[in-house]
């Protein structure tokens, strides 16, 4: 099953409440995906020449102070925030590619996301507990996408949870299941795309990363999914300035959108949208199958 949520603030006044709203939406989608939960939140952008890393360690005994000192020695650190014992945000004075290449050499540490605005948090815990643990209500930001997982294709682990990073400030959440992910993973590995799990959705994220690395726009990369992915999917893709949505042409998996003067939002079900301000008066519709929708500036 799985649940998807996403919200993009059109009105700056709503940004203070972003985390609280996406948290409420995740809780509503909790019974679609009780195995794990995650969110990508876009906030507090760093300037040119700097980047933001979301780092995760499966062992809570990890020494984040030592990691921060290493980063300070390598590039300089402008901010280090321990969000939970396993998750930190590290703002470093390096370009995202360099920062990511360095962070991937840290033993016991996984890079959840790299960019200038994106932060990814995810854990193999029940969604309501996730929202509490990460204190989502305290997070302001411009937009966010989130996911509640009911695992079908791979193990229930934090690494197998969504969102998956698909490049700088980009991430993917997926409701559905892909049937050609093993073959596609092999092909993408030959193209130099790395994978951490046996998860099908990670392959979709890797596919988007590869297509965009080869010069495709996000829209072209998503349209490529219609040709190259076999299976069921509703995708939501977070970008630095907005988000995009794609459903497979058969559209087995649900999606419903709502728009007011203040926001555009997506969820697997209206129940999640009902949590948003003035939802009863929002324009509500289902995205058409096989059509790429996007809001905000999408990387060209």
């Amino acid at each position, binding site marked *: 099953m799985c649940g998807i949520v996403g919200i993009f603030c059109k009105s700056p006044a709503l940004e203070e409440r972003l985390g609280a709203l996406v948290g409420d939406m995740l809780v509503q989608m909790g019974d679609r995906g009780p195995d794990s939960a995650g969110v990508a939140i876009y906030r507090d952008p760093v300037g040119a020449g700097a980047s933001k890393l979301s780092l995760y360690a499966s062992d809570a005994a990890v020494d984040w102070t030592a990691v921060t000192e290493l980063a300070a020695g390598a590039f300089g650190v402008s901010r280090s925030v321990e969000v939970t014992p396993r998750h930190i945000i590290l703002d470093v004075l390096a370009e995202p590619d360099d920062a990511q290449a360095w962070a991937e050499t840290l033993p016991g540490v996984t890079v959840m996301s790299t960019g200038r605005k994106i932060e990814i948090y995810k854990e193999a815990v029940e969604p309501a507990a996730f929202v509490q643990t990460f204190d989502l209500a305290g997070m302001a930001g411009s937009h966010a996408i989130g996911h509640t997982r009911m695992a079908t294709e791979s193990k229930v682990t934090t690494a197998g949870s969504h969102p998956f990073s698909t490049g700088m400030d980009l991430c993917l959440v997926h409701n559905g299941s892909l049937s050609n992910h093993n073959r596609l993973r092999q092909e993408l590995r030959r193209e130099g795309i790395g994978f951490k799990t046996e998860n099908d959705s990670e392959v979709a994220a890797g596919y988007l990363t590869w297509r965009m690395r080869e010069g495709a726009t996000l829209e072209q990369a998503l349209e490529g999914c219609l040709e190259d992915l076999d299976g069921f999917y509703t995708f939501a893709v977070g970008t630095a300035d907005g988000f995009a949505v794609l459903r497979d*042409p*058969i*559209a087995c998996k*649900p999606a*419903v959108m709502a728009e007011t003067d203040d926001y555009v939002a997506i969820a697997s*079900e*209206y*129940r*999640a*949208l*009902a949590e948003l301000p003035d939802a*009863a008066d929002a324009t*509500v*519709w*289902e995205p058409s*199958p096989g059509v790429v929708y996007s809001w905000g500036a999408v990387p060209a």
Partner: protein
Amino acid sequence: MSIEFDLATSSVRELNQALHDAREGSFRVRNPRGAHAIAAGIDAPLEVDIDGHAGYYCAGMNQHATVRVHGNAGVGLAENIMSGRVEVDGDASQSAGATGHGGLVVIGGNASARCGISMKGVDIVVRGSVGHLSAFMAQKGRLVVCGDAGDALGDSIYEAHLYVAGSVASLGADCVEKEIRDHHEQELLELLAAAGIDDLKPADFRRYGSARQLYTFNVDDAEVAVSR
């Protein structure tokens, strides 16, 4: 005088139990907020008004009751409806009226994919358009679409009657356009009237149905069945 249920303070289970216990009367449901299975399983001539958007399987298995959704409805509206009437002011999601045996479903807006999938006698009137694979394996009943139909309309259809006023993206396997004869015109008039639609007439529609090439149909068998 209708009995009110506010789903902000009552559960769907409490509402549905009250609807199952009642033999008559009117009910009003506030704050549906997309909850699942609102007013499912009614078996009495009740009147139920739902103020807002309903979630999955609203008015499923309905018998005798009239259920009106003053908003949109989620997946599986009036699934397996047996009789009575289910109306939605707004849009309905996928599989509206799926497997319905009887009764009438009226959708004021659009219905998405698989509207009337495997319908077995229900009548469905959609003021707007329907998505792909509508009336898939439809066996019996009538589907009236005042707007357009998506891809693969009537795929693997048996004996349901499909009427579409707008365009059809494509017809499914074994579904073909058919002549509108007098008795079709009559049933279309009745269905439009029942749905309260007075700005369209039977001549605005085209009819689609089974070419009877895909399933094992033998017209002699049908006549034997009728003569019995």
